[in-house]
């Protein structure tokens, strides 16, 4: 394949922290003697991302996702390993590199607080040296795609969280970056706003061919936006591939959602498969992949089924299973050692 947009080889990022034990006596003692510990935020990760790809980083909190993102954007220097973005070394923080990327952090903002977002746009135009005609066109497109309307003329502090996030995104894209790093972009937003932001990001990627790297706790973000996921857990890459493949591997079972015309007792349901939930209106059963067809025909034959759908296990569950499984495996290893 031609030159990858992002290439990471054996990335390691280690920190030295000092433990702070609880209690008054220990706190006094720590004044004189500190215990240093090495934290391996990222411990040997390698992957490549091609131009225009949409990739999601998944992993439990503290897994190393945000650290990796910060290394890719040049905010952190790797302890070892090689990282390249569009052939640049991020840590050099060359102007040419900085003009090609953008980092949007859901928890931090770049919009000027007391002024309207339009002023931040103008500021970014000047800093990124965007020619005025292109700037006007970009702002018009973004205003239309994000349905900003007159939000951009109101002081940022008067906007709601969702409106602010939309304007944040717009401000981050004024210079038409070709690589987008998004760190929890939909955090704290209501469902409809999440949908809006997701469809915008997807549209932007399709229109401009920008490469997208996203971290998020919301599985819907990942499912809607990314074709490929990289799972990082405790600083190590544990999976790199398509999301549904991952789901199939971790939870190779299907869910049967039954709408029942009249209540059925639990024992009868348990004969068909594992009961996830049951109430007056219906039941949800979990059934291995291979058994789906026979169970469906038996259910239709023996139960008062009003409606029946076959679904994949919810991604949230798949993910938490994946992480708890790996944690349990690690605990076993640690116990054994």
């Amino acid at each position, binding site marked *: 394949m031609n030159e990858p947009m992002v290439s990471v080889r054996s990335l390691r990022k280690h920190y030295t922290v000092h433990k*702070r034990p609880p209690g*008054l006596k220990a*706190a*006094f003692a*720590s*004044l004189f003697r500190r215990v240093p510990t090495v934290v391996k935020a990222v411990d040997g990760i390698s992957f490549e991302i091609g131009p225009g790809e949409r990739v999601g980083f998944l992993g439990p909190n503290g897994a190393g996702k945000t650290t990796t993102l910060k290394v890719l954007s040049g905010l952190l220097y790797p302890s070892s390993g090689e990282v390249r973005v569009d052939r640049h070394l991020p840590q050099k923080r060359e102007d040419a590199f900085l003009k090609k990327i953008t980092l949007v952090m859901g928890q931090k903002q770049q919009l000027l607080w007391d002024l309207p977002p339009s002023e931040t746009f103008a500021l970014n135009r000047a800093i990124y040296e965007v020619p005025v005609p292109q700037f006007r066109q970009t702002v018009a497109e973004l205003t239309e795609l994000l349905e900003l309307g007159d939000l951009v003329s109101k002081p940022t502090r008067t906007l709601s969280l969702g409106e602010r996030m939309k304007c944040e995104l717009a401000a981050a894209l004024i210079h038409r970056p070709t690589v987008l790093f998004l760190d929890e972009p939909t955090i704290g937003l209501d469902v409809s706003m999440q949908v809006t932001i997701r469809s915008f990001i997807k549209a932007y990627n399709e229109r401009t061919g920008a490469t997208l790297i996203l971290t998020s706790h919301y599985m819907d973000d990942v499912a809607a936006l990314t074709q490929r996921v990289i799972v990082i857990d405790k600083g190590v890459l544990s999976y790199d591939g398509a999301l549904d493949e991952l789901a199939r591997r971790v939870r190779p079972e299907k869910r049967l959602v039954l709408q029942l015309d009249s209540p059925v007792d639990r024992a009868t349901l348990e004969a068909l498969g594992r009961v996830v939930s049951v109430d007056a209106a219906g039941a949800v059963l979990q059934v291995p992949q291979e058994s789906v067809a026979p169970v469906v025909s038996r259910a239709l034959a023996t139960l008062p089924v009003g409606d029946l759908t076959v679904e994949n296990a919810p991604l949230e569950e798949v993910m938490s299973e994946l992480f708890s499984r790996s944690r349990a495996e690690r605990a076993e290893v640690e116990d054994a050692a």
Partner: protein
Amino acid sequence: MSTLGRYWRLLRVQVRSSVLLGLQYRADFALDGLVSLFWTLTAVIPLFTVFHLRGTVAGWTFGEALLVTGWFTLLEAILEGAINPSLTAVVEHIRKGTLDFVLLKPADAQFLVSTARFEPWRSTNVVTALVLWGLGFVRLGHGPSLLGSLAALLLLVTATALLYSLWILTVSAAFYVVKIDNLTNLFNSIFDAARWPVQVFRGLLRWIFTFLIPLALMTTFPAEAMLGRLAPTALAWSLVGAGVFAWLSRRVWLRSIARYTSASS
């Protein structure tokens, strides 16, 4: 379970968490004390220079003026160690919107908020104050009279109460004005005038510093008490003034909280 006992226990808990917090930032722990000391020492230089050039200023000699500066330093120590840290935390609460947590607790908000943070290592200035007093009396060639000392002790209580009340008034303004770090800066800038005997100021300014922002009651009057030359009217005004300001600040605080809880979303 008496209310007093309860508040005493609360106080102990608050102090303990302050100390723990302070110990966490180990560099700060040592540095804070040193910086306080440094500020005090550098602040004495102007005093020294003025009296080096002129033996008596506004009826005060160097030794006598040192007493005033000593009182100022002592009050600064109380301000920096016991009052400032907690009340600055209130400002943070208001800014971050976490004051609601304080208001939801079943104890008086003003008490909780005033005892939230103590930084006792800033009390190095207490020692400095004692040193300044010592130097002052050495220069004067005599010590304080017994009656004078008793009066001074009483005035310590009123001075602390006044300082605290003025601070509460300043912080209450935070409920009306969003960015208040400036207001605390303003307070400190005005309070700085208290390091000089109030007689240095004339006319309107002296009136303001005696009745409106009663700095005179906090540093000049106690020093005069120690020197045995405090007028009885001044003593009376100190006691009355402290009471008035305590009452006023409590009312303003309660009014501000009421406005906050009814206005916040």
